[in-house]
């Protein structure tokens, strides 16, 4: 299976691992607004996704709760629980870039500590800016797998 394919929740996870679900953590699910992306974080399913545009008035305030929940999940669960991250942003401002970097640093640390972490960076094949950001972010990962996923549609 290609690393850019979207897996259904639970699919491809060994039964032993999916049994070890972290049911104490809430699922974050926020709809996209005009200036902020859709956020889905399901710690027990090991899935996190961001979709849309990101230039909220207060980027640190917007991303803070997500980063807190991610940190809590990564610190509090068995590293055998893998995490799949899907990012599909068409635009983000510099304050959001900072928040993304903080999120990627948490994920890379978790991968360095033995967790299987995969990040798919999705963008339109014609989008030079998002392609370049993807290349730049990819350089920061040594342990986590970061895949550039350009699409034609």
């Amino acid at each position: 299976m290609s690393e850019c394919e979207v897996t259904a929740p639970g699919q491809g996870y060994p039964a032993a691992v999916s049994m070890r679900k972290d049911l104490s953590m809430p699922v974050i699910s926020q709809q996209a607004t005009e200036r902020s992306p859709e956020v889905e974080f399901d710690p027990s399913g090991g899935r996190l996704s961001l979709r849309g545009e990101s230039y909220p008035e207060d980027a640190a305030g917007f991303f803070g709760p997500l980063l807190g929940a991610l940190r809590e999940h990564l610190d509090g669960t068995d590293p055998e629980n893998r995490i799949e991250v899907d990012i599909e942003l068409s635009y983000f401002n510099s304050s959001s870039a900072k928040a993304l970097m903080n999120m990627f640093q948490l994920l890379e640390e978790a991968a360095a500590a033995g967790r299987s972490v995969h990040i798919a960076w999705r963008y339109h094949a014609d989008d030079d800016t998002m392609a370049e950001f993807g290349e730049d972010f990819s350089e920061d990962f040594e342990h986590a797998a970061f895949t550039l996923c350009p699409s034609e549609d």
Partner: protein
Amino acid sequence: MWAEEYFRHKLWLNEKGIIFAFTGYLSEELLFSLGDALRKKMALEETDANVAKRVFSVFVEQAQNVIRYSADRVEGETAQSALSGQRVEFSSGLVAVANSENGFSVVCGNVIDAAHVERLRTRLDQLAAMDKNEIRSYYKEKLRAGPDEDSKGASLGLIEIARRSTRPIRYDFIEAAPGQAFYCLEAYV
């Protein structure tokens, strides 16, 4: 005769190729609305999607810099905002977008404390002297590092503006009032 003064102002903007300009108290809500109008105008004119995205990005960072760093600010509670426990904030400045056969330019201007001029000028001199690859590396370096002291962002905004600009950024400072300077920054896409 008073209409003539506004007409001359409008003609001056036209001569500069300015397709829209906002002067006055800017807020995040206005940033959103102006940015939305800018994107729609570019879409109507079938501006290349990558160019439109760069113009929009420069516009957002320029407008956010005015909102965050203008020394002329008003903030407080209105009867309405108090109901939701929020404060109303406005920062005075200007943002303008020009379009000509040479492409787009985005200008912002606002007053700053004169004591901040030298540090800002040094930063801008540094960015204007860098080539594309140097700016890209510098952006990454700043992204990894913590935010600068007394900078509300990571000072990444200015680097983003310089990075999207196809020519070196242009900037100037003039004395606006005792202890205050008027600062202008222009980027080109």
